[in-house]
């Protein structure tokens, strides 16, 4: 496939800061001298619906969209959303899940049930070492900013990006995030990285 390209699929719900997180990943990769592309959809799809962002990096990247069965890591910012795109995961790929439930409308209305045993199912299907659950809301609160769940998840992702050190990420976070929330976000990043 023309040199190895790494593909990440970030998934979740509008408002969780997924697009900012994928922007940060792209910047980190670019500053490491890699080619990087990402893709997401704006507009109507964002009004409370699912949000996905494909991020792909390597020596040369053509497609900003990953194909099914070719994603190295699914990063789900919401528990249920981890199940929606499993057909994108590569054999032996990783799944990172933020431990947070956001009910879709049919569950809110009592017409459908929020799936139970999501983690158990994922582990039995993909192997227990391939599924990592991150207590995002807890860690973000611990870092002093409940909204920093996306930075917690970046920290968790950073564990699986060989060739990059904490400073590579910290540098970009410092460039991108406003000063007054930076400290809490760096802490959130570190907590996610250690989780």
């Amino acid at each position, binding site marked *: 496939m023309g040199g190895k390209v790494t593909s990440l699929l970030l998934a979740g719900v509008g408002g969780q800061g997924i697009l900012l997180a994928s922007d940060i990943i792209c910047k980190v990769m670019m500053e490491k001298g890699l080619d990087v592309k990402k893709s997401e*959809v704006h507009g*109507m799809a964002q009004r*409370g619906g699912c949000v996905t962002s494909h991020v792909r990096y390597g020596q040369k990247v*053509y497609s900003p*969209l990953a194909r099914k069965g*070719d994603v190295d890591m699914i990063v789900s910012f919401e528990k249920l959303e981890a*199940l929606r795109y499993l057909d994108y995961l590569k054999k032996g790929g990783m799944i990172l899940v933020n431990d947070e439930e956001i009910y879709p*409308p049919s569950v809110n209305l009592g017409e459908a049930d929020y799936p139970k045993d999501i983690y158990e199912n994922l582990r039995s299907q993909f192997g227990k070492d391939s599924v990592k659950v991150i207590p995002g809301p807890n860690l973000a609160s611990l870092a002093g900013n409940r909204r920093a769940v996306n930075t917690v998840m970046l920290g968790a992702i950073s564990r699986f990006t060989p060739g990059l050190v904490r400073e590579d990420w910290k540098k970009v976070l410092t460039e991108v995030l406003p000063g007054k929330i930076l400290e809490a976000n760096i802490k959130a990043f570190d907590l996610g990285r250690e989780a």
Partner: protein
Amino acid sequence: MQEIMSGNEAIARGAWECGATFGAGYPGTPSTEILETFAQYKGVYAEWSPNEKVGLEVAIGAAFAGARSMAVMKHVGVNVAADPLFTVSYTGTNGALVIITADDPSLHSSQNEQDNRNYAKFAKIPMLEPADSQEAKDFIKLAFELSEKFDTPVFLRTTTRVSHSKSVVRIEEPVKAADRTEIRHLPLKYVMVPMNARARRVEVEKRTQAIREWAETFEGNRMEMGSPEVGIITAGMPYNYAKDSFPEYSYLKLGLVHPLPEKMIRDFASKVKKLFVVEELDPFIEEQVKAMGIEVTGKAVFPYTNEFDPGVVEKAITGKSSAPAVTLQTIPPRPPNLCPGCPHRGLFYALNKTKAFVSGDIGCYTLSYMKPLSGMDSCICMGASIGIAHGMSKALGPKGKGKVVGVIGDSTFIHSGITTLLNTAYNRSDAVFIIADNRTTAMTGMQEHPATGFTLQGEKTKDLDFAALGKVLGIDSVEVIDPLNFKDTTRVLKQELQKEGPSLIISRAPCVLLMSKKAVQAKQFFTDPDKCIGCKVCLSCGCPAISWRDFEKTGMPARPDRKKQKGIAVIDATLCTGCTLCAQLCRQEAIMREGE
């Protein structure tokens, strides 16, 4: 220097770098960020026009004056702008005119999936199509040069995946372009009466022929020779999908999709054993290649509908997919929804209760057609709500009295609702028309419009008074309501539906996203579990902040005094904006604020 940019940001940057000074258009996904970004550069003029037709006409004026000018719109916007489009092709441009059309394969945020490459051929206007952000920046520059070189408007076509993908772009400094604007009187060229237009018509054909020849040596049309077994002709984003799947094959990558370089295509076809065209939507290139008498495979194996990805291309060409089979569990869908606190919720909740046919329009409020609001019955295009309601009401006659409503957003009304509202006054409609006025163009991300009091570049300006306009157009009855006041909204709807002649209701409350976080979070509601009887009335307004907690499923203790009660409603304090709608609907007074 390198930067990561979306295709839209790169187009804006490229336009500015090459000395474009003028941009006009109307917001529309996936095109919106082009003008928003361009407007922020120094030394440019950019405006939101009321609609794409006006935007194109404004851009034509700037090009006639000698500027490098662009008109920016989504694919369906070109339909609105089609009238000036087809004739500016005849007049040519003096300065430079680029029309940007952002198409939306897969209808991520659109009402149809039209392939605007057809407009290029139809209107005889050359069209460039970039494949990523770097090309988007390079091609917008080429588009301006091409426009000046051949005295023609030029299309730049993107798709959602080009506009909204981000990739690495080399940033350059803007050129210092001399001001070339001046008044030139060229009536034979610009006054398109039949005798002049006939002469220009001939020029258009000569020009197309000249561009066709130029296309043979245009560096944006390039062959990348690999294995001679398979050759792929492609353009735009599908090039990337194909290269991702089959880096070893030979490619003819077209930067100019109209007109096509026939010699180059014949040459390429002769060098490969099996030829494919990889293109999303219509067989635009394929049909032309076939008309050259060249054997080629396209839509016989590729889908007509939806955008591609590398997997689609792989499957079409090889007949099989390399993806491992994974059975996906059926899980609850997560469709987009009106935001918590959205004022449209109150309006459409009340409209549903009237049982009227609600002819809707394009905007966030179109989402109200979904359950549980079920507040809309049709949506065709920008501005159609009013005409459709008028036509229905006329066709139904007395049967339709009090049963037909047209609803249109504020920005959409300005876009193409004014003439059609005038028609209802002129031709005496009995329907009720509602402007859902949330003080912004919400769906595309809060753009200003002629009733917000500000321009795209942040200048304070006039703000249109909808009520006064309704009166001037000849609407008999004009009312203003707060859609989050349920009782009042219901009363006014009932009252206006009974009246003879057209009525206009302005349903006015700002988009919740315009309100400050502090204002929103100061007044959240909660449900009192002792008072909630589990009737689900509050759930029927479809607010994402309210959810149902089933006693049995959650293990919550059931109510010993109310045996039939199955659960209670709860409000998520992090989502509630204090709009009060659910509290107004609750007959048990079980929804209240802290301290009430």
